[in-house]
């Protein structure tokens, strides 16, 4: 569902923040589709009653620890160009000051890490995003920013920030519009009167 990748960003606010640099190829692909009418049972936590669908990992990439097991590959804190793996990730989310391990926990790659050092799961990544984008986080929680589906008077499903924003390159991506209405002069009348 391509449409989900899109998001309109308020340009200046966006670049300022901290990023969610997933050291995975996680969001190279479009995220999972939103479940249209009935929400699929949320796989993830219901922290504060917030139900979210599965984080949009690329297939076969999670758990990260299947490669980053701390043995076969040493943790490399050096900022560098990635050549071996994850070369498809374009870090365009404060690239001057950010690096993978600001958000991905160096010791346990299956977790994310808040500025406080606290580790969180990918299914609550909104906490990480919210550290810098506090205003958006607040609006997201009350259902004003971002997308909610389900029922207006009952259970709702929220999308994670990363369902709409590629965390490594969160700026909005353009989209092909669906067809416009027919112009009146292009409507052909049919035999026997109108249409």
């Amino acid at each position, binding site marked *: *569902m391509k*449409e989900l990748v899109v998001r309109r960003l308020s340009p200046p606010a966006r670049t300022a923040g901290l990023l969610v640099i997933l050291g995975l190829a996680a969001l190279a692909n479009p995220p999972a589709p939103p479940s249209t009418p009935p929400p699929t049972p949320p796989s993830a936590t219901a922290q504060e009653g917030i139900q979210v669908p599965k984080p949009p990992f690329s297939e076969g990439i999670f758990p990260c620890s299947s490669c980053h097991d701390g043995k076969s590959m040493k943790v490399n804190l050096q900022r560098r160009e990635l050549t071996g793996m994850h070369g498809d990730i374009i870090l365009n989310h404060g690239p001057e000051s950010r690096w993978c391990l600001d958000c991905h926990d160096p010791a346990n790659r299956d977790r994310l890490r808040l500025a406080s050092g606290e580790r969180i799961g990918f299914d609550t990544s909104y906490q990480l995003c919210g550290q810098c984008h506090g205003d958006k986080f607040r609006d997201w929680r009350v259902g004003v920013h971002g997308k909610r*589906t389900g029922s*207006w008077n009952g259970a709702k499903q929220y999308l994670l920030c990363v369902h709409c924003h590629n965390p490594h390159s969160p700026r909005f991506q*353009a*989209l*092909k*519009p669906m067809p416009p*209405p027919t112009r009146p002069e292009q409507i052909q009348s049919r035999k026997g009167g109108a*249409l």
Partner: protein
Amino acid sequence: MTAREPIQPAEGCASSTPGGGSRREFLGTAVAAVATTLTGCGKLSHEEFLQHNFRELSKDEVRDVIARLEREYKEKYGREVKVANTAPLPGVIFGYALDLSRCIGCRRCVHACVKENNQSRSPEVQWIRVLELEKEEGVNLQHADQYYDPAEVPREGHFYMPVQCQQCKKPPCVKVCPVGATWREKDGITVVDYNWCIGCRYCMAACPYGARHFNWGEPNLPPDQVNPDTHYLGNRPRPKGVVEKCTFCIQRTRKGLYPACVEICPTGSRKFGNLLDKTSEIRYILENKRVFKLKEELNTQPNFFYFYGV
């Protein structure tokens, strides 16, 4: 009496439907002629012709009408179509808000609406029009283009404003209807009884938002594209010659679901809820965001709001 044989149209309209003769005998030629005048060369069963305004029907009559419609749809589309009659929920007035700083003009909402609400497919009747406006001009409808079709949206220097029925608290469309075929329900949804509408199109002229649409021809709705989950006052298949409009997806929202356009919007621009519920997102928006109503000066008092989320 099986009453589904159509009345034969008067001379000049070819008809292949059998049984018209007996219908005429039953109703009398004069009534048949009147029915023909009202429906052009279309078909009209005598029950349909004699049916009262939906608001005046007793419970039993409603049941009969719905049963008849479901039968007719089955015949026409070869599949079960459910026609619900769900009443407004007590303590609910629906409100809609649309974030102009997020909408990218992708028209996903327009086409989800067409599908959900059984509009004619060719020519396609669209209840939502997305206007492309120039940032420099602001909300200036004279610079609005609804036919934009670039390779990608949003276009540099532009913003987008979807317009659909604003579900006015003082709907001019309702005021002008000479036969009372359209009215505002308790939950704030302006509806049309398609069986009572005479197709005069006064409401279209009166609506300042261009929200009403007329079926000039028999709606072209391929059977495999019919949404069978319908409401009498909403998305049930319409006949030729009646006016239709957005009903906030009455068939969905009265069951607690979000409207189809909310569900599809990839940017989350569209917000919906109960204006009487202090904890709803719609109330939060009205209380905390920069909100405006389209053509506020006309005092139609929309329950549809535009806001800036940033």
